[in-house]
């Protein structure tokens, strides 16, 4: 069917790059000058009438340019032979590396990685948008080598890419303007077997598995999913990759709280990775005093302060898909558990107390981010959102940030003896939490 896609001026490059992976490299675009949201009503109207309209008409009535296939290497093609510096330069110029030196993906190294999985090298774990490339086990090994991973990490890498390919996660959104970054959480005995850091400084680079596996994620997004800056990756600012974190399962077992992986549906003791995408986060330093009197009100206040425009994932763009993540240090978890608090009780506390006035909620959506869906009373009346958002007509009634208490995720990690927490701002439906089991390591 003839179509014309309307894109703001700054997104023409993204649209052109994305259309290649969709098999329609010449799909016609009609440009809107500048950005719609900084124009007055009259400016926007004039831009549409002066620029966009004529192009849209042309797009629907003039035969499009015929597209031609571009030539690329084959799945297992050798692409370079040479010294370390030259190959790094070659990979960088071809946009296959992140700018840091890579470990050369030689046959010997790739085969070492492949020896740690029972999957065949050509097995396809999924097709990744926007480039529509096959996520093969071979390509996982190649990028794992490049990232500086050890061959023993291969089962973790495979599980991560299975998660990346899960449609609930929504990898296709990884180039969106908020530029959020994926956080990977590891659970199970593999934490100690592979020597992941799960204690002090857990989000800092410096431990080989945490750091190199985090780098692998971003290299795979680049090389196989196809997210390159100034092309399919339109992050306004962006971040570097996040170092992989792991939970402190000794403390979880001691206090009887479930790990994230168990809450995501796997048995305790099962090795697993959980992925989700976050647009930011902040430390909540020194939770002190009484749990109910000081600690939890402080934590709830910090959660509120991490959620602003992301409310569009609670009501509107992603109905009920906001899943904030809170990291608690072991000493905080132990203190709370000793006082009888469970993870479920904590989640319920945050649901009940991390609230903002309905007028503020609506103002963020309606006035500040110009979203068409913002009227909580109307949405609740239509049954599109939970009744808790319209328990009265008082505009100052306090409403929750998420639909259900269980939308809060809580992980136990970090400095065992420091009383601080960390709150992540979630990217909603554009990076929804997904957990995958790590298949047992093959005998190499």
């Amino acid at each position, binding site marked *: 069917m003839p179509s014309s896609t309307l894109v703001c001026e700054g997104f023409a490059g993204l649209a052109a790059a994305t259309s290649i992976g969709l098999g329609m490299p010449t799909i016609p675009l009609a440009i*809107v000058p500048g950005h719609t949201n900084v124009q007055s009503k009259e400016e926007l109207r004039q831009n549409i009438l002066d620029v966009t309209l004529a192009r849209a008409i042309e797009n*629907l009535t003039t035969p499009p340019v015929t597209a031609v296939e571009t030539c690329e290497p084959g799945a297992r093609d050798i692409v370079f032979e040479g010294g370390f510096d030259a190959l790094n330069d070659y990979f960088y110029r071809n946009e296959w590396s992140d700018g840091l030196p890579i470990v050369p993906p030689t046959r010997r190294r790739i085969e070492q990685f492949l020896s740690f999985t029972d999957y065949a090298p050509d097995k396809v774990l999924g097709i990744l948008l926007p480039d529509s*490339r096959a996520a093969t086990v071979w390509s996982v090994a190649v990028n794992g080598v490049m990232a500086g991973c050890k061959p023993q990490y291969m089962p973790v890498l495979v599980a991560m890419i299975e998660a990346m390919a899960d449609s609930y996660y929504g990898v296709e959104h990884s180039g969106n303007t908020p530029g959020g970054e994926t956080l990977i959480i590891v659970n199970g005995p593999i934490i100690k077997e592979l020597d992941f850091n799960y204690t002090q400084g857990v989000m800092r680079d410096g431990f080989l598995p945490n750091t190199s596996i985090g780098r692998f994620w971003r290299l795979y997004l680049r090389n196989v999913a196809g997210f390159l800056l100034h092309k399919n990756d339109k992050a306004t600012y962006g971040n570097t990759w996040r170092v992989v974190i792991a939970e402190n399962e000794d403390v979880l077992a001691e206090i009887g709280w479930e790990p994230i992986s168990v809450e995501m549906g796997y048995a305790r003791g099962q090795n697993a990775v959980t992925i989700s995408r976050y647009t930011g986060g902040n430390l909540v330093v020194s939770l002190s005093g009484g749990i109910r009197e000081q600690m939890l009100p402080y934590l709830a206040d910090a959660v509120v302060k991490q959620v602003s425009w992301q409310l569009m994932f609670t009501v509107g763009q*992603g109905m009920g898909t906001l899943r904030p993540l809170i990291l608690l240090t072991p000493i905080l978890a132990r203190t709370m558990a000793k006082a009888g608090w469970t993870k479920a009780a904590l989640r319920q506390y945050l649901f009940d107390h991390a609230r903002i006035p309905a007028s503020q909620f609506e103002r963020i959506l309606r006035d500040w981010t110009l979203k068409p869906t913002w009227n909580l009373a109307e949405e609740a009346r239509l049954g599109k959102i939970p009744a808790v958002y319209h328990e009265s007509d008082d505009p100052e009634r306090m409403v929750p940030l998420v639909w259900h208490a269980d939308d809060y995720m809580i992980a136990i990690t970090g400095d065992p003896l420091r009383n601080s927490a960390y709150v992540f701002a979630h990217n909603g439906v554009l990076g929804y939490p997904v957990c995958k089991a790590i298949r047992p390591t093959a005998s190499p």
Partner: protein
Amino acid sequence: MFISDDDVNDERRYTVYWPRSPRQVQIKPLAPRLDTLAGKTIGLLWDYVFRGDEVFATMQEALAAKYPGIRFINWREFGNTHGSDEHQVLAALPERLKELRVDAVLSGMGC
């Protein structure tokens, strides 16, 4: 002159493999275009962001003045193409466009 192991490694030659993976999609020919928009039905697809409602209203007004008999199917008829149910909305789209006898589509907003 002292030569370190690193210097020796710099002289090593490596044979290395492509880190990407073949695309699983082939070029799809685009649909033939319309001879005129007069008397045609235009479907409006919106991702519910970046003032598409205003943009479409302006375009509708201008197109209606220029092309007699042109008809529009409002974006509400199709649902949000970029919401939490976007997979279902997009999967239902071909059938929905057929049901509504749509001849061409304007889709926005990529901003």
